């Protein structure tokens, strides 16, 4: 019996090891190719790079426009996160702790978004930003992203703030704090754990978003990383393969690195994001 169990465990371990290789190999292969010269790569796709040469990265960032895509994506994500967190904290506090007539109505006014698939909105929204004359501006990215983020964000922050005792806020009010002092001095520090969860969820989706960026951005100098990467493969004829591998490596590694440094926050956030439905 004990022997059979040992064999089962050994088999499971080998299966898991193979699966781990399958999970990691594509990324590792791409990273290895990114250090090779074009000739080395074309000679053999299995050979290891001879040195850690960064030429491909320089080509990708410079000729491949990766630096532009990166900066745009950082800017878009940062701006989206500010709007996400500020708007949702204000709204979450109002829903959880304040007297509001027609509260349920307004709550579902936002939550109903979960039932509307994004593609429906994208085409008329595209016509809308043309009408408003905000195509290729930050506003045309940030507010649509916030709209997508808000329902889940609101559920999470309202649930969280509901569990905060009212006395805490009452006593601050008695001490003479006004609404914004209460928010700034009491609510934000208490809500830090949930705000970091929301930042991970909102940041990841803003950074990775593809379809709206593809539809709405017409100016190449405003392209995001997603859109830039999606056209990168077609640039192999101009740049060669290896710079494209460099570009793919950098974009793939971003969240892997953040994850390795903040594993707990990440896991907590992704788990929290899955309770909707």
């Amino acid at each position, binding site marked *: 019996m004990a022997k059979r169990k040992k064999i089962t*465990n050994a088999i499971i*371990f080998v299966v*898991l090891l193979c*699966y*781990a290789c399958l*999970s*990691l190999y*594509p*990324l590792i292969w791409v990273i290895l190719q990114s250090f090779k010269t074009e000739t080395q*790569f074309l000679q053999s*796709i299995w050979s290891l790079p001879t040195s850690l040469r960064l030429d491909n990265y320089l080509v990708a960032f410079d000729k491949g426009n990766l630096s532009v895509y990166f900066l745009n994506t950082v800017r878009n994500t940062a701006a989206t996160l500010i709007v996400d967190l*500020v*708007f*949702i904290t*204000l*709204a979450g*506090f*109002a829903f959880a702790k*304040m*007297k*509001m*007539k*027609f*509260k349920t109505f*307004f709550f579902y*006014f*936002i939550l109903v*978004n979960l039932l*509307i*698939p*994004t*593609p*429906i*909105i994208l*085409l*008329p*929204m595209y*016509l*809308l930003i043309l009408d408003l004359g905000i195509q290729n501006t930050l506003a045309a990215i940030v*507010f649509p992203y*916030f*709209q997508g983020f*808000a329902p889940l964000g609101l559920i999470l922050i309202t649930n969280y703030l509901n569990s905060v005792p009212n006395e805490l806020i009452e006593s601050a009010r008695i001490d003479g704090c006004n609404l914004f002092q209460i928010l700034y001095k009491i609510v934000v520090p208490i809500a830090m754990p949930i705000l970091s969860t929301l930042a991970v969820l909102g940041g990841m989706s803003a*950074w*990775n978003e593809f*379809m709206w960026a593809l539809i709405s951005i017409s100016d190449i100098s405003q392209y995001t990383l*997603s859109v830039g*990467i*999606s056209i990168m*493969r077609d640039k192999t004829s101009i740049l060669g*393969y290896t710079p494209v591998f460099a570009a*793919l490596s950098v*974009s*793939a590694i971003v*969240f*892997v690195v953040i994850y390795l440094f903040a594993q707990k926050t990440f896991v907590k956030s*992704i*788990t929290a994001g*899955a309770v909707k*439905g």
Partner: protein
Amino acid sequence: MQSTAKKFWIDIKQSIPAYLLILPTIAVFVIFLYTPFINAIRISMYKYNGIGELTDYVGLDNYLIVLKDPKFYEAFFNTFKLIGADAILSISIGFFLAYVLYRGIPLKRFFSTSLFIPYLISMVVIGSIWRIIYDPTIGPINQLLQLIGLGEWAQPWLSQYETSLPAIILTWIWHTIPFNMLIIYANVMTMPSDFIEAAEMDGATSWQKLRYIIVPYLLPTLLVLLLLTVTTDLRAFDMVWVMTQGGPGGASEVITSYVYRKAFSSQNFGVATAASIIMMLIMLSITLTSQFLNRKKA
């Protein structure tokens, strides 16, 4: 009567600070959700190429065009093949991995970290990487087949009709398994340990523990994952667009890429919007059915 009216206005007046706090969110929703949504319903009833005013009213013709288009059904069934494969394979493999980690295994930390990595890479980047992996000449799959003497199996995976959708589905599942694994693992860890201890006291085998304690305990989680799979995969676009753009000849077209093509390649916004509204109705019926079933059970 007057006093209730008065009370109503007092309530409203006292609610003003709260209204001010929700105003930014509500404003974004009016401008960027409700306005486009109402416009979507209007546009779906016009022949419209995206330029100028809506003038050419056609009633429900656009819906009929979509419902009579064999390409739409192809996209529809492809989407459901993706959903089916994702729901069955990804959730069950995710379950297996989570269970193995839960039971304990040497190098557990290494496994739990490295198995999660495919989920941390965006669909666009994964699609681009796997497009190279499937490449007929420089792709590792074909090169490996040649290396081990199975060269005749090498084929242009993404550019032939039979293999393009399965190739995308495989990549898709590769990306979603870690998510399902993580959620199942997080939930099985919340299981009170006396559940298992009591079963062990009664001499339950590990299969019995799995079958009668762990699976029933995780059932609500598995249902949430199923619903998430359906609603996410119905919107599938990024990976498909990057890998094949729905080709060759519609072999890997999904509903959302069909909508995109109708709008931006055929300049047929009316038909595209009608197709997306049909998609919403499918999604609504699935969500509402599942909510209804949940209610009934509770």
